[in-house]
């Protein structure tokens, strides 16, 4: 009856579109139908000769199907794809056993596989059921797959089917609650009150009980007694490491110093802090999220500060936070003034918990210490301070510059003034912590600081001293701010914001903590330095604000530096007095902030300061007029507005000398972001920054960036838009563009061509460079991403600073390191214009100032910086081989950077990795961290760390110190014929550009994911997106980055910017190439895998590394491919959207390929 039948079936078509290969010569039927998500695609080629036959589908690899006698005929022809939606019900039956009865009465049994457009049914492992064959079929009877034509099917019976088998909503709240019997309603949680007998002490004891279970020794002892198990634990860990042989040799001392520096850097890094915070966060999940809120009780400082507050609710939170803050302040006061039994609680409350800890931990191991006093090592503190001093140095510089502040606003040339202003800011920042800071300043600051800077610091110190008189209050204030910040951040939840806040708060906390605990007091000696440093940053910030003409005028008014402190105290008091007052206080603070940063001392103050800073930035950008608005805004929205207020205060500060001190707070914030050490001092400011938390921070950052821009640029007008935009991440980017435009040279550079937005940003960067141009081209570049040109420049500056610092630290490699910094920051600028190099010098100070701004802007800046840094690093690495120190520095910087901008970093890392093996390790980690929300924060902290370095560098530059300067002043390097340096610069620039371009492109992409990846994204949207999809973003980012880079590269990264075309280009090419290559390939690869199997996609997502690798491989390939297809970009974006889309994309790609 049936003659022949030959069919090929391609298996595993699910979710993918594939090709059919016909093994048959004559007729071939291809059935391709795809059911969205439901049914896979079938490819069937079959040939009939003779009468119609049942179609037997056999795996391609399998032997040709054997004719099945007795099968009913199946029609021929292609199947259409019209399927009734109702048939989706059939999908539920997939994988169930069924009996299919055909026209002639034969019955087939098989596993229902799928169905076709016209209800053709496919049974897997089907066999014909014969009456005599009661039991299971034999192997020979089973056919892999059989397609039954609809017209042949009479009845199909599925027995015992669970129609809800594949329902997805089995575990949704609705589905679960739907099954719950009886009446269920939310139970109102009531705080447990033990009554009078159980006073707060007992509760506190529980909260603060540091002893967590068994002491290790007890455990050993118990095991020995009970089980006879002898622990082999060796405290020396000889199994894992080798004891350090100490000697007095110079080399050893050098190495030790270096190690100490590195340790400081690491511990100051936001990442480190964030990690430590995570580890040392003693709060339980319950405490964080579900415990009854005892905010009303001061004793329960833990309360809510730690809790994550959605951005949308932050304002409310701020209200609610008030109590917490108050508590924290109270605690702080208690701790400071009176030894509170609960050190831990204090920490929590003050820092709003983890954040502070983190910061502390980062800078000086405080995190853990804070919770447990014992844990706090004085030595570390000291070390911290020691580390801080360098930062302090930066402050010192600022001091010298402060005088110039007035001048700054008028012209960029004022850069020096910026530094000085920064110093003043820093001082201001310290004001709240001032007491501590001053101490530090006195102790450490002077030596390190340049004479001028020292002077200024001293002046600042004076205010601090006043504050110091208030010490307890001050400390409390800082804590409060920190707490506020931390609360707002619940930064942990919001990684970036949290970390920042934490860092900042940490710095402050450190100060506060030190004062609180006797140890701390001892430490405080050391800490003062840090505080000083912190203050310095703050000052710089103020300077910056001052620098911006607009800001200067309004800001000054706003900020009444001296009064600020007093206000802070007042504010603190008010806060303490009434928790709810916090809100009120905040507003008050805002006003105070406008007057001074002082009020900010409180968490609210900090926030306000931050807000002020933001506002300042905005104002600056916007110009004076904007400032008032900003101030108002801060009032309105605590987080944003607060920051704005801070900025405003800062700006106001700049305006008035006294204001400078307040402004310092803003600078402090920025600096805090930049310099961890400074953070201590700045902590309040930082905390303020953190207060806004992620979003706020971001906003702040944006604001800061703006501010920076403003400071940097007279282009306040441009900035204004940014300010406006700042609130909105997306919008911010655009404003930067305008800024970027100001600096044509830079702007032109790259990406623009590819991505309009990105380009704009880059331009913005350039612009920033222009005004700040001196400061750091890099910054500018970064700024573009951020949109806030100023902030960007600052960040870049920070970044560069970081490298510089490191380089400085590494002195030996110093020049190389210098090169790196220069390359990192300077390269872009330098390359474009020699003047820029000079600017860099000037920028040094500016950078400092910018750093503070950066802190505020932290996210943006940090991201931008990161981006830059990666790029720079990448370039550096490329170059790095030559310079030993650079790698280390670079790596560190890179690590930080990576965290901030995952994708960017990844790209950079990729490059770097390829170039420098050393860096890769750190990079990945960082990346991972970046993925975490904290990353942003960490980044900021890192920046802060870098800032210190910057500060140092800046200091040296000012001083003219060759070693430090080298790094600090890229220009110098450029001047130096060193080809390597040039190459670096060139390379760095290109990379940066690429980075920018990449960043920019991502934003354009529309997809949030990409944006996050991009520096821009990092700012507002980026952070958000990042949070949402860290992994995906990473992977995507990489690809995006690659694309971006490629695009940029193509657009002309190499082109003009790089003087040393061949070598630098090569370098760039290498770096860029990989990215570019990866991009194209990446997308394809990703897509390709996807088609094959959905798992591949997932794997891709799940395993960024894998993707990276692919990318790398892709890079290699891509190198050849200069052209980045628009489709590629599109795909990238698409990828960000989700797996489903990816699948579709993959399918599309396949189709496209085929078509092509």
């Amino acid at each position, binding site marked *: 009856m049936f003659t022949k039948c030959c069919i090929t079936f391609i298996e595993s078509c*699910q*979710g993918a579109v594939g090709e059919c290969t016909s093994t048959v010569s004559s007729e071939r039927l291809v059935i391709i139908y795809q059911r969205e*998500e*439901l049914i*896979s695609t079938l490819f069937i080629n079959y040939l009939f000769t003779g009468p119609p036959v049942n179609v037997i589908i056999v795996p391609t690899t399998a032997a040709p199907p054997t004719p099945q006698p007795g099968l009913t005929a199946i029609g021929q022809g292609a199947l259409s794809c*019209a*399927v*009734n*939606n*109702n*048939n*989706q*019900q*059939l*999908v*539920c*039956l*997939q*994988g*169930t*056993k*069924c009996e299919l*009865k055909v*026209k002639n*009465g034969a019955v087939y049994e*098989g*596993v*229902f*596989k799928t169905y076709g457009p*016209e*209800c053709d*049914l496919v049974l*897997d*492992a089907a066999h014909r059921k014969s009456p005599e064959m009661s*039991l*299971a*079929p*034999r*192997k*020979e*009877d*089973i056919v892999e797959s059989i397609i039954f034509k*609809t*017209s042949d*099917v*009479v*009845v*199909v*019976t*599925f*027995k*015992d*089917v*669970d*129609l809800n*088998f*594949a*329902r*997805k*909503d089995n575990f949704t709240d609705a589905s679960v609650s739907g099954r719950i019997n009886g009446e269920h309603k939310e139970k109102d949680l009531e705080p447990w009150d033990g009554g009078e007998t159980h006073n707060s002490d007992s509760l506190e004891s529980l909260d603060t009980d540091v002893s967590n279970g068994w002491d290790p020794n007890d455990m050993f002892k118990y095991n020995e007694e009970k089980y006879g198990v002898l622990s082999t634990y060796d405290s020396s860990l000889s199994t894992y490491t080798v004891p350090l042989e100490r000697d007095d040799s110079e080399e050893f001392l050098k190495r030790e110093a270096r190690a100490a520096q590195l340790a400081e850097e690491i511990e100051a890094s936001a990442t480190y802090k964030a990690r430590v915070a995570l580890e040392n966060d003693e709060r339980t999940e319950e405490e964080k999220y579900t415990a009854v809120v005892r905010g009303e009780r001061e004793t329960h400082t833990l309360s809510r500060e730690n809790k994550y507050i959605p951005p949308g609710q932050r304002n409310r939170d701020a209200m609610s936070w008030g109590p917490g803050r108050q508590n924290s302040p109270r605690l702080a006061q208690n701790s400071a003034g009176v030894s509170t039994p609960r050190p831990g609680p204090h920490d929590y409350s003050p820092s709003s918990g983890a954040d502070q800890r983190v910061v502390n931990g980062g800078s000086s191991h405080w995190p853990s210490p804070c919770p447990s006093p014992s844990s706090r090592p004085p030595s570390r503190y000291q070390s911290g301070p020691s580390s801080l001093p360098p930062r302090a140095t930066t402050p010192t510089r600022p001091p010298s510059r402060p005088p110039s502040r007035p001048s700054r606003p008028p012209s960029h040339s004022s850069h020096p003034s910026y530094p000085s202003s920064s110093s003043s800011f820093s001082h201001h920042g310290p004001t709240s912590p001032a007491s501590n800071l001053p101490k530090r300043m006195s102790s450490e600051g002077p030596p390190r600081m340049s004479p001028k800077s020292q002077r200024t610091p001293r002046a600042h110190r004076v205010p601090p001293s006043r504050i110091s008189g208030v010490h307890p209050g001050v400390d409390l204030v800082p804590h409060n701010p920190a707490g506020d910040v931390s609360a707002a951040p619940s930064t942990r939840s919001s990684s970036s914001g949290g970390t920042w806040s934490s860092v900042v708060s940490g710095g402050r906390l450190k100060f506060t903590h030190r004062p609180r605990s006797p140890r701390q007091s001892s430490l405080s000696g050391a800490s003062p330095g840090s505080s000083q440093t912190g203050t310095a940053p703050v000052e710089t910030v103020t300077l910056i604000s001052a620098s911006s003409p607009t800001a200067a005028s309004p800001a000054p008014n706003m900020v009444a530096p001296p009064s600020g402190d007093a206000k802070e105290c007042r504010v603190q008091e008010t806060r303490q007095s009434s928790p709810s007052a916090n809100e009120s206080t905040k507003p008050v603070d805002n006003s105070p902030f406008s007057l001074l940063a002082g009020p900010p001392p409180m968490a609210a103050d900090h926030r306000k300061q931050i807000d002020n800073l933001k506002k300042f930035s905005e104002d600056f950008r916007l110009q004076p007029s904007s400032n008032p608005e900003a101030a108002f805004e801060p009032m309105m929205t605590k987080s944003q507005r607060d920051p704005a207020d801070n900025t405003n205060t800062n700006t106001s500060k700049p305006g008035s000398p006294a204001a400078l001190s307040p402004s310092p707070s803003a600078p402090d914030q920025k600096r805090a972001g930049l310099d961890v050490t400074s953070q201590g001092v700045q902590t309040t400011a930082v905390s303020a920054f953190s207060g806004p938390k992620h979003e706020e921070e971001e906003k702040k950052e944006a604001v800061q960036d703006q501010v920076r821009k403003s400071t940097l640029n007279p282009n306040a007008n441009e900035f204004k838009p940014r300010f406006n935009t700042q609130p909105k991440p997306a919008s911010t980017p655009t404003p930067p563009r305008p800024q970027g435009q100001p600096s044509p040279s830079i702007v032109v550079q790259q990406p623009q061509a590819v991505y309009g937005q990105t380009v704009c940003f880059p331009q913005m960067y350039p612009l920033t460079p222009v005004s700040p141009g001196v400061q750091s081209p890099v910054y500018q570049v970064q700024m573009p991403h951020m949109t806030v040109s100023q902030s960007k420049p600052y960040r870049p500056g920070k970044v560069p600073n970081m490298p510089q610092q490191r380089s400085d630290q590494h002195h030996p490699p110093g020049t190389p390191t210098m090169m790196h910094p220069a390359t990192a920051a300077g390269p872009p600028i330098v390359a474009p214009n020699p003047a820029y190099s000079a600017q860099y010098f000037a920028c040094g100070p500016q950078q400092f100032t910018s750093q503070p701004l950066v802190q505020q802007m932290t996210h943006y800046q940090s991201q931008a910086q990161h981006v830059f840094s990666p790029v720079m690093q990448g370039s550096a690495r490329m170059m790095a081989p030559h310079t030993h120190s650079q790698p280390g520095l670079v790596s560190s910087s890179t690590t930080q950077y990576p965290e901030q901008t995952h994708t960017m970093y990844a790209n950079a890392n990729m490059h770097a990795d390829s170039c420098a093996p050393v860096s890769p390790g750190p990079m990945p980690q960082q990346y991972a961290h970046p993925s975490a929300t904290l990353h942003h924060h960490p980044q900021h902290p890192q920046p802060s760390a870098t800032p210190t370095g910057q500060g140092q560098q800046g200091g040296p530059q000012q001083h003219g110190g060759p070693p430090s300067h080298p790094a600090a002043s890229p220009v110098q390097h450029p001047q130096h014929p060193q080809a390597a340096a040039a190459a670096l610069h060139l390379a760095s620039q290109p990379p940066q550009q690429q980075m920018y371009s990449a960043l920019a492109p991502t934003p354009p992409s529309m997809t949030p994911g990409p944006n996050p990846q991009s520096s821009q994204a990092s700012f507002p949207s980026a952070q958000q997106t990042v949070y949402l999809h860290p992994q995906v973003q990473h992977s995507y980012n990489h690809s995006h980055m690659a694309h971006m880079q490629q695009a940029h590269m193509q657009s002309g990264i190499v082109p003009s910017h790089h003087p040393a075309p061949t070598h630098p280009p090569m370098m760039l090419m290498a770096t860029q190439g990989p990215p570019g290559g990866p991009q194209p390939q990446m997308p394809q690869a990703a897509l390709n895998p996807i088609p094959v199997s959905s798992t591949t996609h997932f794997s891709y997502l799940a395993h960024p590394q894998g993707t990276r690798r692919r990318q790398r491989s892709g890079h290699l390939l891509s190198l050849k491919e200069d052209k980045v297809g628009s489709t590629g970009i599109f795909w990238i974006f698409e990828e960000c959207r989700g797996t489903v889309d990816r699948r579709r994309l993959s399918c599309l790609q396949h189709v496209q390929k085929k078509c092509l």
Partner: protein
Amino acid sequence: MAAPGPGEYFSVGSHVSCLTCLGQRLQGEVVAFDYQSKMLTLKCASSSGKSNLNDVILINLAYVSEVDIINDRTETPPPLASLNVGKLANRARTEKEDKLSQAYAISAGVSLEGQQLFQTIHKTIKDCKWQEKNIIVMDDVVISPPYQVENCRGKEGSALSHVRKIVEKHFRDVESQKSMQRSQAQQTQKDSTLSS
């Protein structure tokens, strides 16, 4: 193709009864209906009597002689739930593998008892497979023909004892079934004799 006219369309939720060309009477609730292919999907109560399960019947209306709508439902059907495709695909694969594995054993000449035992064990322990005529359970216990309790070999342990229990129970159940059938048969015989 023209839109389905009145009486030619089945709304989801309706109860329909039809008679196939093979003389089979089918009745159930309409789950889906594809007008183009005239494929009607009915949901019926499970033949095994389990309340959480259903029998689903796909009917080609081209081969149905009678279609009676017992009661119609006009309200719109509930929205389709999203499905876990992966889960479905997984099920399809495992089902297929199970069947092939079973077929493998059968083709190897395993006795009916062996196959039944395998099915019984498989219900409890998924990790069982055929190795020639031996049943390998959890890669640990080997049951060789004639598949009696004493044929269970393997490392002494809980696994072996557990498998033995299963085997023991299986044959006990089989015996009881047989006895049941026997008694029933006898009963019928008695009835028939009595009636006669």
